[in-house]
Every structure is written in C-alpha cells, then in structure tokens.
C-alpha cells in the first residue's frame, strides 16, 4: 500500500516552541526515563523554556554545564555526561535547543540520551510531531 501525504511541513518551518510545549516535553522525559530526577530545556539564546523545578535556578545550572562542556571541548558540544557520587548530569543539544538533566547514579547513558533526543526532536518539530508519535508508541 502506498500513501501520499498531501501536506507535510518542513522541519524548519515550524515556529519556535513555546513554554507550554517545553513543559509538556519536560513531563514526557520524566515519564519515559525512569532514572531522570529533573531537567530543564533551554532555547537558542540559553534562556530556560521549562524546567521540572525552580526555573531560574535550573536555567543558571543548565547554562553553566553547557558553558563548561563547550570550554572543555573547545567548540559547542553535542552532548556531555558527568558522573558523580551524588548522581549524574547530562547536557544534550539538538538543533537550536538544549536539554540539561540530572539522573540517578549508574544510569545507562545511551538509553537516557536516546530519550532526551527523542523529546527534543519532538519539541523542535512542534506539537504535531508529538501527536503523531504518541499513537505510534501505543501501537508498538
């Protein structure tokens, strides 16, 4: 069977994600990733769009981790992973968005990065992408 979609918007044509979209993305990540303790999503200017806790504190912490990772690499990083005795911190960039999260110790990094990128990708493509992805997940 061949299906043709008459109207498929390009990825770049969507408007920037809103704070409400980002809040949904934060809730989705905390739901799908059992080890996630909290996270923040930053817009292209580094301003926090949504967070699981105090947004200003999360915003500063997220920017600091991204800045430290960029300085260590000498260029903007795609992701960073720091493991400590108290937990683990991740920073992930996708398109113009960034997600910084804290997880439990011994989190499987590959799984968490997959979840974080999926959430960011859905957010970057707009609410329509999330609406399409949800039935696919239910069917799987």
């Amino acid at each position: 069977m061949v299906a043709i979609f008459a109207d498929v918007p390009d990825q770049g044509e969507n408007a920037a994600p809103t704070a409400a979209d980002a809040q949904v993305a934060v809730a989705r990540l905390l739901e799908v990733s059992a080890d996630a303790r909290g996270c923040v999503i930053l817009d292209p200017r580094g301003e926090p769009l949504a967070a699981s806790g105090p947004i200003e504190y999360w915003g500063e912490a997220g920017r600091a981790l991204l800045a430290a990772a960029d300085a260590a690499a000498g260029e903007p990083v795609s992701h960073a992973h720091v493991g400590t005795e108290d937990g683990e911190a991740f920073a992930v960039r996708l398109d113009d968005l960034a997600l910084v999260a804290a997880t439990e110790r011994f989190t499987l990094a590959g799984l968490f990065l997959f979840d974080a990128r999926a959430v960011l990708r859905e957010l970057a493509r707009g609410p329509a992408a999330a609406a399409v992805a949800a039935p696919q997940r239910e069917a799987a």
Partner: protein
Amino acid sequence: MPPKPHRVLLDRVSGYADEASAFLRRRRLTRRPFARVHAPGGRAIACAPETEEGRELFLAASRVIDASRLGD
C-alpha cells in the same frame, strides 16, 4: 536423552541474567567520577577531575544535581 527444549531456553536466559548481574555489580564497584564531552563530529574528550576543565564540569554538574533536589 536430550533435555527438553524449554529447559534449554530457561538455562540460557538464566545464564544471560547471571552475566548481566555480575557485569552491573563490577560496574558499581569499579566506577569512579568522570566527565566526558562529545563534539558534533564524534570526537569525545574525557576530562579528569584534577584538570581545570574537569573541575568546572564537576562544579556545574553539582549545581544541576542540586537543582533536581529543590523540587517544584
């Protein structure tokens, strides 16, 4: 007489589970704090805590972990 097929399957699953639990146990015992950054081209850099870059990364990570404790 060969073992029943389902027993072979159960033994194999049990073997994999034992291997996995031993791997996780070793991982918990041997794992030390670490910081790794990954550039878009696939380049990965490990930053030791003793270095300036590593120190900054661990400080920033501590703030992120602290933020997760603050709750809503």
